[in-house]
């Protein structure tokens, strides 16, 4: 293998090389999740759209896909919310302000926000699913006049697992969003609603099914029950969106890991229309 020559240092970046990004802030969200704010060392904006993801690298440890959880309307930084589950994410949790990591992206196909302009939006998020849709939530709030009614439903397993608490407070008080949340298992201090996320549908005013775009992101089991609620309100399946998670290695449609039937989630997703997914048996089973 040593016969292979390295390219000169000044080169156009190849497909798999990450570019450096600096940690500008770290915030602990829960026992398992931290929020990181990054800026590319090149000074360029990442250039992402809501719903896209990046491959995050710690050189020498490895790489993993993480959704971008801030909106491009928020300036030249981007945020990633990382749950500690294994090798790479474990090391990410050791990062401090000033550290540098590698980024490839933005990757994948995010939300078609232009399609949503002029419409009402209903977002239903469960657990870590709030991270990928937070980029869309921020986008809608920053471009509020482009959208009609905006409903946001969020469910977590327990109060300790609620993500983005600062945001939750802001959203609850904001006239710009009709926000409701619930936890499956309340504790003594919990004063809010309890029960699974579908119970929050009782809080919704009647929605205009033909004018409402629905976004559902959460664990597969939640997905199914939420889709039932939405279809029961006669929202057409083409107006329902979701974001899939798969094992990913390349992020660019080569390595085959993310394939669900005949789609590559990294290329054609992670955001899909529910109508497109129905024919894909592996998509939501």
């Amino acid at each position: 293998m040593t016969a292979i020559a390295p390219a000169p240092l000044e080169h156009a970046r190849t497909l798999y090389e990450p570019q450096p990004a600096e940690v500008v802030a770290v915030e602990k969200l829960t026992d398992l999740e931290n929020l990181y704010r990054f800026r590319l060392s090149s000074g360029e904006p990442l250039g992402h759209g809501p719903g896209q993801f990046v491959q995050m690298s710690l050189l020498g440890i490895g790489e993993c896909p993480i959704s971008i959880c801030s909106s491009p309307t928020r300036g030249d930084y981007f945020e990633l919310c990382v749950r500690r589950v294994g090798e790479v994410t474990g090391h990410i949790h050791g990062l401090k302000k000033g550290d540098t990591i590698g980024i490839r992206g933005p990757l994948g196909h995010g939300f078609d926000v232009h399609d949503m302009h002029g419409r009402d939006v209903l977002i239903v998020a469960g657990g870590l699913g709030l991270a990928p849709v937070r980029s869309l939530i921020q986008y809608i709030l920053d471009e509020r006049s482009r959208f009609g009614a905006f409903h946001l439903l969020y469910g977590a397993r327990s109060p300790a697992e609620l993500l983005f608490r600062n945001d939750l407070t802001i959203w609850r008080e904001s006239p710009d969003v009709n926000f409701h949340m619930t936890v499956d298992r309340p504790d003594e201090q919990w004063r809010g609603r309890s029960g699974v996320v579908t119970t929050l549908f009782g809080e919704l005013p009647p929605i205009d099914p033909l004018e409402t775009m629905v976004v559902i992101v959460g664990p597969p089991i939640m997905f199914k029950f939420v889709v039932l609620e939405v279809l029961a309100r006669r929202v057409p399946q083409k107006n329902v969106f979701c974001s899939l998670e798969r094992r990913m290695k390349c992020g660019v449609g080569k390595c085959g890991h993310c394939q669900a039937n005949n789609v590559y989630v990294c290329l054609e997703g992670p955001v899909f229309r529910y109508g497109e997914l129905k024919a894909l048996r592996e998509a939501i089973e």
Partner: protein
Amino acid sequence: MLDRIITRGRLVELVDELARTRRIIGPVRRGERFFYEPVAKAREIDLEFNYCVYSPKKVLFPAREELFMFERNNGSFRTKPLLDERPTALIGVHPCDINAIRLLDQVFSHSHRDDHYLARRRQLFIIGVDCPAECTAGVFCEDMKSNEANEGFDLMCYPLSANGASEDMRYGIKFGTDAGREFLLYAQAGDRPTVEDERAFERYRAQKRAAFQRRIPFDVDGLPALLDRSYDSLLWEATARRCYSCGSCNLSCPTCFCFNTFDKLDLTLSSGQRVREWDGCQLREFATVAGGHNFRPQAASRLRHRIYRKGKWILEREGIPGCVGCARCDRACTAKINSVEIYNQLAEEG
């Protein structure tokens, strides 16, 4: 129409000339079997090979390769890509494998260019050898329409006279690229084909058509539709009962291109390489995500995934079949799981 006629002796001389500027890789006999290996002299290559156990895929897409190296310093890092730009010639590739390379070319060049594959591909000169008969039992290249190749090579050699390994046996030559044309013309090698040569070529083709058996008793264009109807067939589970999920079928396949990546750290702990290595969809963890959820936990769902990829999805995505009918997967399988048999059993179900 042929472009040139050349004797085996002259071809061997030309390959030896090529070896002065390129690494030469071709079929080398090891006991009863053949493997693609680098050689110093053209004579070490056996152009009468039946088939190579592994395909030439590994020349373009090695089983393990370093993608880039990195250096960590002051909390940041620098990367340098590792591109293999060694001029190489691959001598003796059968049409099925040339068709497989065409698929890889496309997969690694569209939408996001894979510089590592493409650097090797740019530097690769391919001399194909056409097969006058089935190379071994069980191949179904005829059914997959890949027992002929019309592009994807620099030169293609058609063995027009039968007497095997003699020096004056004649190959009909077709140019696939300008590089192939120049290779012969600059060396002033080969003769213009005569009318008699063209007739011999026609006879060769007629004999070839008669020599190849069909093993799938329906038109392969109907395979995607057949698979479409067969998603819920019990055959997947019935067949997968024998499957060891060992991935040998993936590893031996000339069109499988899935991979994994991981990092290697040097002893200094400040530099290392990102590596990619072949992966296979038959291995249990292939579709496992964090939290342990596996999107294809049963051998049956993995087997179905592989066959769908080969028979339907790759064709639909790339416009090029995902299987070239070389039957390497069938031969590699200890459990004797056989793709032709699967196709035929599905067809019997209707």
